[in-house]
C-alpha cells in the first residue's frame, strides 16, 4: 500500500512539473478559461482512458473504443430531439450492450480480445458511416447542449460527470466483488480460475465498461458541438492508452489504479493544451503523444517497474490457454 501511494505521488509530481513548466512559460496557460478547456479535454481523454485501462487491468485490450465513440456520438445527435439526458442514455446504453456482447464473445469463442476488437473496430466504423448516411449529422435543436456548455469556474458539467464517474468506477473496482474479479483474472488468470472465479463476468463487465465510457465521451463531445461525423475519434485510442500507461496501469494485467489513470489523462491534456496555445498544428500533437508513449515504454523497460517485460511474461504465464 505504501508503495502504491509512493508511485501515485511521483506521478502527481510529474503532472505538477508539466503544469508548472507550461504555466511559467505561457501566461495564458494557468487561466481559469484555459483550465476549463483543459479539464474538458481531460474529461474526454480520461473517460476513454478509464475504459481502456479497465480492460488492460483485466489482462485484455479494447481497440474498438474510437469506433464505438463515433457511433455513440451519431446516435446521441440523432436522438437529441428527445433532450440531453435521454439522448446520452440511449447512446451509452447501446454502447454498453455492444461492449457486453463483445466481452462475452471473447470468452465464449476464446478469441484474443485484440483480434475481435480489431474486427469490430472496422465493422463499427462502418456502422457509423451507415447510420449517419456518410455525412455530418447535425442536432436539430442546438440548445440541447446548453447544459453541458455551462462553466462552473474551471469545471463544466462534462468534467464534473467524468470526475464523479472516476470515483464510482474506482470504488467499484476496489470494493465490489465484481470489480476485484477484474483484477484477479488480469493478474493471475489461471490461479483466479482455479479459485473459482469465472471468466465471463469480469471480462464482460470490463468490456461493457470500456464501451460505456467511450460511448459517454463520444456522445457528450458530439452533443457539445451539436454535430457528429462518422470519421470522428479515430485517434482516441492513442491518448487513452498513453494516459492509462502514464497512470501506472501495467500491461501485464492486474495492476493499475483509477487515480493513476486520472493523473495520466491530466498530464497529457496539460501537454496538448500547452502545445496548442503555442499554435502548434494538430500533427505536432500526434508526434508529441507518440513520442511520449514510446518514452513511457522505454522508461518502464529501463526501470523495471512492475509490468516491464510484461508481454513475454504474460505469454509465458498464460501459455496457449486463452490465446487461441
Amino acid at each position: 500500500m505504501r508503495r502504491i501511494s509512493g508511485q501515485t505521488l511521483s506521478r502527481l509530481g510529474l503532472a505538477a512539473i508539466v503544469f508548472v513548466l507550461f504555466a511559467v512559460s505561457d501566461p495564458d496557460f494557468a487561466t481559469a478559461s484555459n483550465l476549463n478547456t483543459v479539464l474538458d479535454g481531460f474529461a474526454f481523454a480520461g473517460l476513454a482512458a478509464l475504459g481502456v485501462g479497465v480492460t488492460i487491468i483485466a489482462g485484455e485490450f479494447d481497440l474498438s473504443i474510437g469506433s464505438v465513440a463515433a457511433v455513440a456520438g451519431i446516435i446521441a445527435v440523432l436522438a437529441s430531439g428527445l433532450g440531453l439526458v435521454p439522448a446520452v442514455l440511449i447512446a451509452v446504453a447501446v454502447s454498453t450492450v455492444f461492449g457486453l456482447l463483445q466481452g462475452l464473445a471473447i470468452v465464449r469463442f476464446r478469441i484474443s480480445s485484440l483480434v475481435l476488437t480489431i474486427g469490430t473496430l472496422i465493422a463499427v466504423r462502418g456502422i457509423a458511416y451507415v447510420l449517419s448516411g456518410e455525412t455530418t449529422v447535425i442536432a436539430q435543436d442546438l440548445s440541447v447542449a446548453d447544459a453541458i456548455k455551462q462553466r462552473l469556474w474551471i469545471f463544466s458539467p462534462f468534467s464534473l460527470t467524468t470526475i464523479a464517474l472516476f470515483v464510482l468506477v474506482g470504488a467499484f473496482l476496489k470494493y465490489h466483488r465484481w470489480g476485484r474479479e477484474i483484477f484477479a483474472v488480469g493478474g493471475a488468470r489461471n490461479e483466479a480460475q482455479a479459485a473459482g472465479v469465472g471468466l465471463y463476468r469480469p471480462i464482460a463487465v470490463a468490456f461493457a465498461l470500456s464501451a460505456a465510457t467511450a460511448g459517454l465521451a463520444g456522445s457528450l463531445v458530439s452533443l457539445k458541438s451539436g454535430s457528429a461525423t462518422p470519421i470522428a475519434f479515430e485517434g482516441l485510442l492513442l491518448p487513452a492508452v498513453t494516459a492509462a500507461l502514464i497512470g501506472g496501469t501495467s500491461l501485464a494485467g492486474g495492476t493499475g489504479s483509477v487515480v493513476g489513470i486520472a493523473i495520466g489523462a491530466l498530464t497529457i491534456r496539460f501537454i496538448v493544451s500547452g502545445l496548442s496555445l503555442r499554435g502548434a498544428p494538430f500533427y505536432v500533437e500526434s508526434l508529441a503523444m507518440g513520442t511520449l508513449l514510446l518514452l513511457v515504454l522505454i522508461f518502464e523497460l529501463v526501470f523495471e517497474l512492475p509490468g516491464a517485460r510484461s508481454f513475454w511474461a504474460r505469454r509465458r504465464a498464460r501459455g496457449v490457454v486463452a490465446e487461441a
Partner: protein
Amino acid sequence: MSQAVESPVGAAAAPTEEAGSRAHLVMPVVVGAAALLLALVGAVTTPAFVTGENVLNILRAAALVGIVALGMTFVTMSGNYFSLSVQQTAAFSAIGFAAAMSWGWPLPVAVLAVLALAALIGVLQGGIIAAGMNPIITTLGAGAALFGLAATLTDNRTVRVGSTAAEFLGRGQILGIPTQSWAFVLLTIVAALVLARTRFGRTVILVGANAPAATATGLNRAFVALTVFTVSSLGAGIAGVFLAAQIGQGIVNQFETLNIDAIAAVLVGGTAVSGGDGSVLRTAAGTLFIAILTNLMLLRGYPFGLRILLQGVAVIIGVVAYALLRSRGRS
C-alpha cells in the same frame, strides 16, 4: 549444430501441429474456395467484374495491401500480434522516395535509401519489442510519432516526384500485368520459402507456437522480434515506393486504411494471432478475398460505410470461425 537445434524444434512443434492438423489442411482451401466463390458470384451478377481491365484493377489493389500483409504475416506468426504502424511507415517511405527523386537521386539509389530507412524504422520498433514491450502499444506509439514526424518535416504538404524516371515502377506492365502485381507474386513466393524452408522461418514459427520451449532450446526470441518487425517495415517501405511511383507524389495521409487492411488480410487468411499457425499463402489468399470483395462492392455502387462494415464483418466471421475450428481440433 543444426541437428541439435532441429530435433527439439520438431518435438516442441509436434503437439501444436497435431492439434491443428485439420485446421491446417482445411483453412487455405476454405479461404481460396471462398475467394473463388466470390469471384464466381461477381462474374454472374456483375458484368463489369470479368473485364480484363477490372481484373487488372483487382490485381493492382491487392498488390500493395498484399505486400504489406506478407510482412505482417511474419509478425503474427512469431506471436507478436500485429504492427499498427505499417501505414505510417508506408507513407513515410512514399514521402522519402518522392523527396529523393525530386532531389535528382538515381532511381536505384532512391529505392535502396528508402528501403534502408524503412528497415531502420522497423529495427527501432523491433528493438523496443525485443526488450519486452507489448508490440501493439509500441507500434501504436511509433505510428503516431512517425505520422507527426512526417507531417512536421513536410509541413503536411504533398511532395512531388517531379520526374518520369520512376513511372515504369508505378504504372508499367510486364506481359500485361502491373509491376506491383509481379512484385506481390514474387515476394509471396520468396516469403513462403523463407517462412517454410529456412532456419529463420522455422525459428519464427517455433517462437510463435511456443515461446518458452523456444527459449529453453536456445532460440533467440529477441532476435526474432527484431527481425520480424524489420521485415514488416520493409514490406511497408516497398508499398510506399510503389504508390509514390504510381501517383507521382507522397503525402502523409496517403495510406489511410493500410493498417487495418493488412491485418484484415492476415486474419481472413486464417493465420492464428496466438502465433505459430498460419502461412504466407493463406495471407495471399486472404488479400485476394478482400480485394475481390472490395472490388465487387465498388462495382455495385455500395457506399463506403457499407463496404467497411462488410469488411469488418468478414474479419469477425473469419476469426470466430477459425477460433471454433481450432478449439474443435484441440478437443
